[in-house]
């Protein structure tokens, strides 16, 4: 080999070697990786204090967030979650927040029940002021928590139910689920329940439906009850003669 060839070979390999780090970087930049972020100077990135959902060696089970002690409730569970909302939305809840003046009111708001002669029964009316804002809030929360199963119109055919019936129609046999169709909330069966009864279904669940008390704060549950009433009223079948005359003529003229 002559000198020139050696030289080219040498420079060539150096250039090729110099490309390797660039290729590694390009791979890191454009491909998914299961290597966590690389801290070049990790100064105080990870400190030993507890952040939410972080594990801790202080406890035998390594749970940094301690579970609830049975029979107790966190102070912020009721009053403060609504206040946090209020802080986040200064003009949202100012007027509607609940004042717990006494134990009776607490019983009505928390459990949707009243005690008469030691006998608990569901209350007929939502125990907090039903405002336009509460109903709007109810619609928003219903769409988040109930619509996947009961559908946006409350008729019991949300996306999960549609998906499940598709699986069944295809004769999908890989999994024998026990899904039952969610109730139609617009029908008399549900609409005849007292407000406290619907609140109780959301809070504690019923038969095949799970409890939502851990996911939805108290005031939002009442907001949802108000919206369930809206769904019922707006989809109620009314005899034609009870409609206003203008609406009736419009309907009869429509082809």
């Amino acid at each position, binding site marked *: 080999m002559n000198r020139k060839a050696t030289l080219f070979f040498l420079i060539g390999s150096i250039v090729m070697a110099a490309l390797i780090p660039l290729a590694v970087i390009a791979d890191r*930049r454009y*491909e998914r990786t299961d290597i966590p972020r690389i801290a070049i100077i990790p100064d105080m*990135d990870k400190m030993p204090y507890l952040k939410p959902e972080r594990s801790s060696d202080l406890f035998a089970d390594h*749970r940094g967030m301690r579970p609830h002690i049975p029979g107790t409730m966190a102070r912020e569970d009721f009053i403060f979650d609504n206040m946090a909302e209020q802080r986040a939305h200064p003009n949202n809840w100012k007027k509607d927040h609940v004042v717990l003046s006494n134990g009776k009111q607490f019983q009505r708001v928390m459990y949707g029940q009243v005690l008469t002669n030691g006998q608990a029964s569901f209350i007929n009316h939502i125990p907090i002021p039903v405002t336009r804002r509460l109903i709007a809030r109810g619609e928003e929360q219903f769409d988040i*928590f109930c619509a996947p199963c009961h559908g946006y119109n409350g008729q019991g055919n949300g996306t*999960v139910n549609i998906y499940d019936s598709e699986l069944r129609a295809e004769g999908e046999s890989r999994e024998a689920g026990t899904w039952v169709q969610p109730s139609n909330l617009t029908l008399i069966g549900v609409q005849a329940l007292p407000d406290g009864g619907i609140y109780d279904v959301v809070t504690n669940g019923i038969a095949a439906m799970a409890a939502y008390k851990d996911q939805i704060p108290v005031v939002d549950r009442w907001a949802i009850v108000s919206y369930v009433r809206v769904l019922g009223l707006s989809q109620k079948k009314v005899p034609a003669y009870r409609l206003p005359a203008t609406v009736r003529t419009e309907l009869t003229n429509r082809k």
Partner: protein
Amino acid sequence: MSDRPFFVFPRWSDTATKIILAAAVLIPVYLVILLGYGANARTLNVNYQPIQPVAYSHAFHAGKLGINCQYCHTDVKRAAFAALPPTQTCINCHAAIAPHSAALAWIRKSYKTGMPVPWKKVNDLPDYVYFNHAAHVNAGISCLICHGHVNEMTQVYQAKPLNMAWCLQCHRDPAPFLRPRNEVTNLNWTPANKTRLAKDLGLTTATLPKNLGKYLEKRYHIPNSKLLTDCELCHH
């Protein structure tokens, strides 16, 4: 003998000089490229996609089934921390759907023992930075801007660098990133849908503001950029 110079550069030294000069120029350029490209947050932070204990798919649950982010991340509008869903949330459906699936083994185990599923944290800021979800989400900033199209991800990965320059690029001028508050979890939202926009804002299509960003900035009382770039906001 005596008129011969004391030292003669050999012939190859001409080539060597050229090579050394070229190297003196090229190596610093190379190092700058290497550092700029390699030690940059886009390279170091983005695309982290850990293997999770349960093969849970956002593309299916949040995308195809259309479940709202808040069904699972319930605290995102209320608290600083967005919170992953407890096992009970999955059991709401999975008690009846795919109850014996091998993919859900961890969920059943966790439900039985009460021990949480050891999800791996994907987006993770250094501990000396304070971040608050409620403040951003209630100011009309969508999950999309900071987490990318989660509703199309089979497995979540970090989509944005989340470094300081990235945070500040928005804090200097948040207006272009704003949208109506009740659309923040709708990752397919577009301002082009005028009727929907009017409904969200409680206006009519005729009275829609010309500059949506500036209008929302005023309506949601977004603090000025001087306040939003104060070091103490994020480091305290």
